[in-house]
């Protein structure tokens, strides 16, 4: 059975070939369907492998000798941690391929669609390889393949300046990260003596080399994960890519950064408290500022991308807590924090891809990503299934029961609150509980943000007359969304189902407390089921009652405070709804506001526009790079002047310097 997992990866890798080869030709429909079928089949095979390993409680291994590169081994191992990450990878990439049939139909889009299929297959296959890698060189190869394939996917609409910019920013970021990871793995190999990954808890974290390793990993994997000061590529790239690719990137790819951090921290024992403290602080920063930036966005995909930053922050809070638990010898904290983080990895994958697919359906129908576009508003009536799915995803991402986001955040809350209990006097560990109010602030802001999105897009009325062609998404797009929605609700209502998966991963990482203090005892999942059912029952009852009552109520227009000529343009816009909250966060958001409010009894026509820049990229990195390039240009004009003698002098000086160094 060990062959299932590599076979799934191989099938996914080549799945895009038929569609790519068909290009603009005749049999595109069939080739496209074959490609989607191959990828879906590959992911089903992968899911079987993951579930099989769970059922049999084994970690299937494959290792082939590979003489191509010194130190490299084709070693894959499907252990508990890999299973947690592989589950959403296989599910989402398979569903995304089906969604692509309706989103980028090759019959209409031509060769572009075939290219996207090829790259999508390569990208999913390389992502699916990463969690199983047991060898650093194989890992780096898959990592680089993933980065390049997704770079080309971001370039799908390469005729747009915006897409090219997004792709180059992404390329610069991802290559910086890969460079750092090279340093990391070389340093790791010097510690362990081989390029194979060390086993769990085999390295002492108190050494100076371990400090360097941790910081390198934090930077390298942090860029991919989109941790707050390193996140700037994320909103650009997610917005520019096709929606099912954004779903893959946001739902799955950025989790590889988290995977790297979890795996790397598992190598060490004797972990100093500052590791956990750094992760916790960065997590709080990413969560709060991520959601604050999200509120200020008017582009639905950029908004969702900032929510990815927020959710990565939540995952980091859990991860930081688990490391703190290790440092202070509190296994319950480790178990709860890590379980919450890992479950949130799965959950965020599910609901974020659901949201991106829903947003894709809206974008395909209206032809725009802008929230205040005229076509948006009142779409729920035209696209009920998409609206329902998006709403379900919104409930999940806000961490509300009965969806899955609540369960993982609840585990993290439990862990955070436990950090103060069961001890006398002050301990630095107690400071961790301060993350809890920030976490709840994040949740509240996320609710506000999704009230804004759902309200502006699906509720209200269209701002002006819109195309009559707007209709519900086709079946191939609806089905993946419904499956994801079902998965979100399933985990939300029956979290007991996923606890064995988490318990196995925790057990293999040595994070499970011994004795009777098992995960189920720490986090009574049955209670969640009960309360979720209770909530759903109450909600259903209220809905039913309202329907009964509203049958008698007469429908009429909204009261306009005596103004007699209201128009649909007088609704809340995305900017006006968020104005209060963006105002509160203006110290960090740097929103630029253009226009003046109307003044006087008979005001002249007034305009208002706001734009929130990507603070790290636009206000720090761009000016820095521009300065560096100007300096380099100046140095070039000084150094390179065309006088042969001076060039020879450079050569002579370099030679002399090298000789002097050699002595």
């Amino acid at each position, binding site marked *: 059975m060990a062959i299932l997992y590599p076979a799934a990866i191989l099938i996914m890798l080549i799945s895009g070939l038929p569609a790519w080869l068909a290009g603009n030709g005749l049999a595109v429909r069939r080739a496209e369907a074959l490609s989607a079928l191959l990828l879906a089949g590959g992911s089903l095979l992968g899911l079987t492998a993951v579930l099989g390993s769970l059922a049999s409680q084994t970690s299937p291994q494959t290792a082939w000798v590979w003489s191509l590169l010194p130190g490299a081994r084709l070693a894959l191992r499907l252990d508990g941690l890999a299973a947690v990450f592989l589950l959403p990878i296989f599910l989402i990439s398979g569903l995304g391929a089906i969604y692509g049939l309706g989103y980028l139909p090759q019959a209409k889009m031509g060769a572009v669609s075939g290219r996207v299929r090829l790259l999508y297959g390569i990208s999913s296959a390389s992502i699916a390889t990463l969690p199983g890698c047991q060898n650093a060189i194989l890992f780096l190869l898959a990592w680089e393949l993933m980065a390049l394939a997704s770079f080309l996917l971001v370039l799908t609409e390469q005729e747009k300046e915006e897409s090219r910019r997004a792709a180059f920013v992404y390329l610069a970021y991802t290559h910086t990260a890969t460079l750092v990871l090279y340093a990391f793995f070389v340093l790791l190999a010097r510690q362990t003596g081989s390029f194979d990954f060390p086993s769990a808890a085999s390295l002492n974290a108190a050494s100076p080399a371990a400090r360097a390793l941790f910081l390198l990993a934090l930077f390298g994997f942090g860029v991919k994960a989109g941790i707050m000061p390193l996140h700037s590529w994320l909103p650009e790239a997610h917005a520019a890519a096709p929606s099912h690719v954004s779903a893959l990137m946001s739902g799955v790819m950025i989790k590889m950064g988290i995977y790297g951090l979890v795996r790397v921290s598992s190598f060490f024992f004797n972990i100093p408290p500052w590791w956990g403290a750094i992760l916790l602080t960065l997590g709080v920063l990413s969560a709060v500022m991520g959601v604050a930036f999200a509120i200020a966005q008017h582009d639905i995909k950029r908004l969702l991308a900032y929510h990815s930053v927020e959710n990565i922050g939540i995952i980091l809070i859990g991860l930081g807590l688990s490391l703190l638990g290790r440092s202070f010898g509190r296994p319950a904290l480790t178990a709860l924090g890590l379980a919450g983080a890992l479950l949130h990895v799965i959950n965020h994958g599910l609901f974020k891809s659901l949201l991106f697919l829903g947003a894709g359906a809206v974008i395909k129908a209206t032809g725009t990503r802008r929230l205040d576009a005229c076509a948006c508003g009142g779409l729920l009536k035209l696209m009920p299934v998409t609206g329902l799915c998006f709403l379900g995803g919104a409930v999940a991402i806000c961490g509300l029961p009965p969806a899955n986001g609540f369960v993982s955040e609840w585990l993290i809350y439990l862990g955070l609150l436990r950090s103060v209990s069961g001890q006398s006097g002050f301990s630095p560990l107690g400071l961790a509980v301060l993350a809890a109010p920030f976490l709840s602030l994040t949740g509240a802001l996320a609710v506000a943000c999704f009230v804004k999105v759902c309200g502006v897009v699906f509720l209200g009325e269209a701002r002006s007359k819109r195309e009559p062609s707007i209709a519900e998404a086709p079946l191939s797009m609806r089905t993946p969304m419904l499956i994801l929605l079902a998965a979100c609700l399933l985990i939300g209502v029956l979290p007991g189902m996923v606890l064995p998966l988490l318990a196995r991963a925790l057990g293999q990482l040595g994070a499970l407390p011994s004795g009777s203090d098992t995960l189920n005892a720490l986090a009574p999942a049955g209670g969640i089921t009960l309360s979720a059912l209770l909530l759903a029952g109450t909600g259903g009852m209220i809905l039913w009652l309202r329907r009964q009552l509203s049958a008698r109520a007469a429908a009429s227009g909204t009261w306009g405070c005596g103004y007699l000529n209201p128009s649909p343009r007088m609704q809340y816009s995305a900017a006006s709804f968020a104005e209060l909250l963006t105002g509160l966060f203006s110290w960090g958001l740097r929103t630029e506001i253009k226009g003046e409010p109307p003044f006087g009894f008979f005001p002249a026509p007034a305009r208002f526009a706001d734009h929130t820049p990507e603070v790290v990229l636009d206000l720090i990195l761009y000016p820095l790079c521009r300065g560096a390039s100007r300096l380099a240009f100046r140095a070039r004009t000084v150094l*390179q*002047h*065309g*006088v*042969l*003698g*001076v060039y*020879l*002098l450079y*050569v*002579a000086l370099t030679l002399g310097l090298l*000789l002097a160094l050699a*002595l």
Partner: protein
Amino acid sequence: MGNLANLLLLLVILLNFFILGSSRLGACIQTAALQGALLACVPLLMNPISGHTLFLAGSALALKGVVMPWLLFRAIRQVRIRREIDPMIGYVPTLILGTVATAGAFIFSDHLPLVAAHRGSLVIPCGLATLGAGFLMMITRRKALTQALGYLIFENGIFIFGLLLTEAMPLMVEAGVLLDLLVAVFVMGIVVNQINREFSSLNVENLSLLRE
């Protein structure tokens, strides 16, 4: 034998100083030719005479002592110049720099981890000093011709280093190096003519007009 070779190498260093300090092109070319001819004799003195060393000495003598000076003389006859008028750094400072470089070469080679057989021999410091002189020549002079001369001296320095390796180095490599040098001087001769025709002067600075 070794004493004679060392004497020749010392002469080579003296000739370096002469070339660095002289402004007359004709004298410079003659000195470079003399230096090349002296160097061509050194492998005969340092190694047992064989076909290999004979060929090496013969071809070096023919090229460095005869062909290249002849080419350069032809070039200065064609462009009708006799002197380097204004070098970038004056003759006296160049000479001082050359002395510093030579002293540096001797000090440096004392610190090098050499094979016991080569320790105390003049070959290494002499080679380094000649390399330095060639470099100085190329850096400080403006005329394309003097730069070609600098290149020749530089190559002489490399040749001196090569003396240590005469046993080890295959014949083809040495022949290749000599041929390389010949082609380089050839090209330099053409460049000299072209610069002269284009700018009616021989200053290589004019070439910087061609940069982007």
